């Protein structure tokens, strides 16, 4: 278990090789497991990849910091849930936290309620410089504190990180404004 907890730390540190290792290590057994649910190989591979993604997201967002079972048990538990779900009527898989669903109800008319707007935001995010993307990724995806980001990216102070982050968010807003303006006028 210690070795696996160590693995989690390495993944959190950005080591994609470890993900590759996990992927290759459990793939065959996972597909055999899916076969017992009568799930076709193509779909099983897809589910396996999505399960690895959930595992990765739980590690990166610090939801999973240490294991109480083996990594394989954890991964297969995710996979089993996904397989059971795929056997039923397809449901939307977007995970909305308890509060966001409320937001969506209250502000349906607003800019952010639509999926396509998330996509526009994603496009805007891609247009940012590498430095901005990294700061935002650490903050919004890895849930890192300003202090942690300061240390990781070697900034002079927390305040510098904070203003850098604000600048990057502002850039996103500007790109979105421009996009909307262009669309309106084309």
């Amino acid at each position, binding site marked *: 278990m210690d070795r696996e907890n160590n693995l989690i730390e390495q993944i959190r540190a950005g080591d994609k090789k470890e993900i590759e290792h996990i992927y290759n290590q459990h793939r065959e057994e996972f597909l055999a497991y899916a076969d017992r649910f009568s799930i076709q190989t193509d779909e099983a591979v897809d589910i396996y990849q999505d399960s*690895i993604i*959930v595992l990765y997201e739980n590690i990166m967002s610090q939801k999973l910091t240490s294991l109480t079972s083996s990594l394989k048990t954890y991964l297969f538990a995710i996979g089993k849930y996904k397989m059971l779900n795929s056997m039923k009527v397809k449901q939307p898989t977007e*995970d909305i936290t308890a509060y966001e669903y409320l937001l969506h109800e209250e502000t349906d008319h607003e800019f*952010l309620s639509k999926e396509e707007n998330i996509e526009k935001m994603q496009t805007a995010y891609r247009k940012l410089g590498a430095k901005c993307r990294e700061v935002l990724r650490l903050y919004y995806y890895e849930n890192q504190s300003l202090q942690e980001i300061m240390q990781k990216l070697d900034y002079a102070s927390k305040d510098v990180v904070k203003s850098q982050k604000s600048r990057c968010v502002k850039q996103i807003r500007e790109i979105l404004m421009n996009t909307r303006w262009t669309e309106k006028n084309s």
Partner: protein
Amino acid sequence: MCQANPGNFNEYEMDREELIAKYIQGKVTEQELEIIRELIQTDEDFREELAFESGLRRAIKQEERQDLKSFLAELEKGHSSQADSENLQTINHQHKGSNAKKILQFSVLGKAAAVLLIGFGAWWFLNQSPDHNALYNTYYEPYPNIVAPTVRGPESTASITAEAFRLYDNKDFPAAATLFEQLTKREDASYAHFYLAQSLLADGHASEAIEVLEDPNWEVPDNLRTPRNWYLALAHLKIGNTEKSRPLLEQIERANSTKSGEAKRLLDEMK
């Protein structure tokens, strides 16, 4: 729970920006969540900013997801389809004795783990500490139904939910557990795991409740994060697994929530 009043907002030390930051990073306490709920109703700028940042978080998550998916697709190319079918045969041969139906039941592995935990718990209970159960009984109190009166969702979910909570309110916990278990498989019922665990705990099944509360597939809603940790700590305590309850209680104590005081007292009594 604290009834937030936006008029008194300045009494709280935290400013709006910090509230949003904590919400976005999943670090809000229940009390702060109440304030956020109020602000959303009353403060349009706050609502817009929160919506914008939630959207940004989702956009970045989507971007990361797509990146990783293409990385995995590349890896997949390294595995030939022929190798797959051969391996499948070998591995399925190894599993010949296993019964496919069993897999569909409520986690065989989990049950085995539960049996081990109960065994360990019983051993621990008999050998080490006769007080855990008493402590558990002192501190355990079923969580109130805070969902049913405001349930919204597709009709089928809504009606199962209403029935599940009716049973829960009538203390018919085994029947409620059955329905909550059905609801855990739905994406639009994020509270289901929590109340399934509640029903199991109320019925004395601490180990099974632990399994549910620790389910990696459960995206714990912000407002249930502290309650989830509290009941997980109690469930571990009940089976004598204080090593697991202690860090959870310490986390609650630090989180400055409505349960912080109780968590501290319980920690003291566990010493």
